[in-house]
């Protein structure tokens, strides 16, 4: 309200009507408007001021403006009033401060005040526009309380989550420890079961009948199978806890293939299966030799297991650009198309179509896949039921120094 009141003495009818319009304007404003003279006396006020502070118009006129300020602030207010006189301009009062007004009944309420100078016959009057911000403050307070509640809740949730994480970590550690100790406890008796069976099979302590030899052979075979299962369970737990690390070295790839084939030859021979090495990659390979053998052994073992008598099993391998392509193929019973995507899942075993062959943990292929992927490679299967399967792998060729 910086308008100069155009009103002056001896106003015409028209002007009088204009003055009444200005007056209405003044009273329509929801903020309290006060004009204060140089001595701090209130000279003009609107109706909002009466409602806001609880003084009647008559009580207001002549009242020192300091009466509208909390007692504690009054002396300060007088000083501020004289400093405003030194630099009179339109500006908010007490920027950055929490201002309060005091009603006639002594109660306080938060306000925002804007000040404007009003020169009247060389004397500085000040127009104060006072806004009651109780509601806004209440909303702000409510928001602050809500925010604090929300923050507290969030902190609590975070703490719960942290505790939960620690619990999961602890459970994982316990699981790993359990598996390690279980594996140790299972291997200890297997050590002597396999060892004594081997000793008996060697017949150094005396000859066995043909039947006894066969029985000892069964014990040995099944004990070794049990050992494989224990190793697989341990492997999958290492893979799941991310603790399986590769130990890469440079080695003769073909010699490695030959070693694995030698390990499976006996099994293949008992089923009259022709085993063939069609490897065309005769360089050295930089990979984890033990794990690569495990990959090839798993695939060859499956191939022999699922190939009927007089079938064929072979390994193909060749370099293509910067990758080594390896396939393990057989003329076995194959895998139905709808089952093919699932065979790399944990504990999955192809159903009725395996002709009753269900031995194993169902962990061989998932482990194989993980081991291939740890090498940065991929594995996929192509298979036709009744015709055979081929497991195809692509390994990026890595240079030793680059790794």
């Amino acid at each position, binding site marked *: 309200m910086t308008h100069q009141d155009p009103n002056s003495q001896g106003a015409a009818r028209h002007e009088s009507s204009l003055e009444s319009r200005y007056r209405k304007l003044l009273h329509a404003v929801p903020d309290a408007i006060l004009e204060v003279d140089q001595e701090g006396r209130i000279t003009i006020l609107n109706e909002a001021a009466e409602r806001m502070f609880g003084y009647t118009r008559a009580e207001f006129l002549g009242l020192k403006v300091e009466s509208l300020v909390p007692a504690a602030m009054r002396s300060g207010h007088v000083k501020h009033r004289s400093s405003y006189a030194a630099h009179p301009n339109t500006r908010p009062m007490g920027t950055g401060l929490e201002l309060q007004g005091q009603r006639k009944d002594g109660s306080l309420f938060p306000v925002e005040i804007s000040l404007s100078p009003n020169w009247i016959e060389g004397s500085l009057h000040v127009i104060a526009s006072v806004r009651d911000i109780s509601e806004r403050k209440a909303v702000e307070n409510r928001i602050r309380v809500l925010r604090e509640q929300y923050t507290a809740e969030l902190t609590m949730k975070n703490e719960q989550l942290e505790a939960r994480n620690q619990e999961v970590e602890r459970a994982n550690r316990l699981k790993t420890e359990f598996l390690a100790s279980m*594996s*140790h406890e299972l*291997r200890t008796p*297997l050590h002597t079961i396999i060892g004594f069976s*081997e*000793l008996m099979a060697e017949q150094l302590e005396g000859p066995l009948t043909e039947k006894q030899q066969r029985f000892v052979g069964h014990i040995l075979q099944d004990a070794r199978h049990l050992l494989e299962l224990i190793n697989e369970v*341990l492997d999958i737990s290492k893979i799941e806890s991310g603790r399986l*690390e590769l130990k890469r070295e440079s080695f003769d790839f073909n010699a490695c293939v030959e070693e694995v084939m030698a390990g499976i030859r006996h099994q293949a021979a008992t089923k009259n299966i022709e085993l063939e090495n069609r490897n065309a990659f005769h360089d050295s390979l930089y990979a984890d030799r033990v794990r690569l053998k495990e990959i090839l052994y798993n695939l060859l073992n499956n191939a022999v297991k699922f190939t009927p008598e007089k079938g064929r099993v072979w390994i193909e391998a060749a370099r293509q650009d910067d990758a080594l392509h390896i396939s393990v193929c057989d003329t076995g019973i194959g895998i139905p198309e709808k089952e093919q995507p699932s065979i790399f899942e944990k504990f999955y075993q192809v159903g009725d179509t395996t002709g009753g062959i269900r031995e194993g943990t169902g962990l061989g292929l998932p482990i194989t896949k993980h081991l291939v992927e740890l090498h940065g490679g991929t594995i996929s299967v192509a298979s036709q039921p009744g015709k055979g399967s081929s497991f195809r792998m692509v390994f990026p060729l890595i240079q030793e120094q680059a790794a």
Partner: protein
Amino acid sequence: MKKILIADDKATSRELLRTVLERQGYVVMEAADGEEALQKALAELPDLILLDLQMPRRTGYEVLGELRKDPRHAALPIIALTASAMQGDRERALAAGFTGYLAKPVPLAHLREEVQRLLQTKE
């Protein structure tokens, strides 16, 4: 004749190892825990020790540590024997000063080869 000390708290395992190694013509001594293994190793001065890692009283690692302090045993072939199959076990054993490492179950052919190899290396 070469003397071999077998230290394993499992009697069946000791009998297995003893049977295999005696057939190879070695003289075999047994210890049923770590402390006994240490005392026998110091008293009998074997040519090779098969030392299980998990034994009562003293672990295989502790026995190894004590033996390696003795100059007479500084170069003695000592094979770690363990049913634990955790990754890095072999590396840890070799780094600690074991001469060899055999994981249980040990294929007998492998046991014979390893013992023979280390005894030959010693000569």
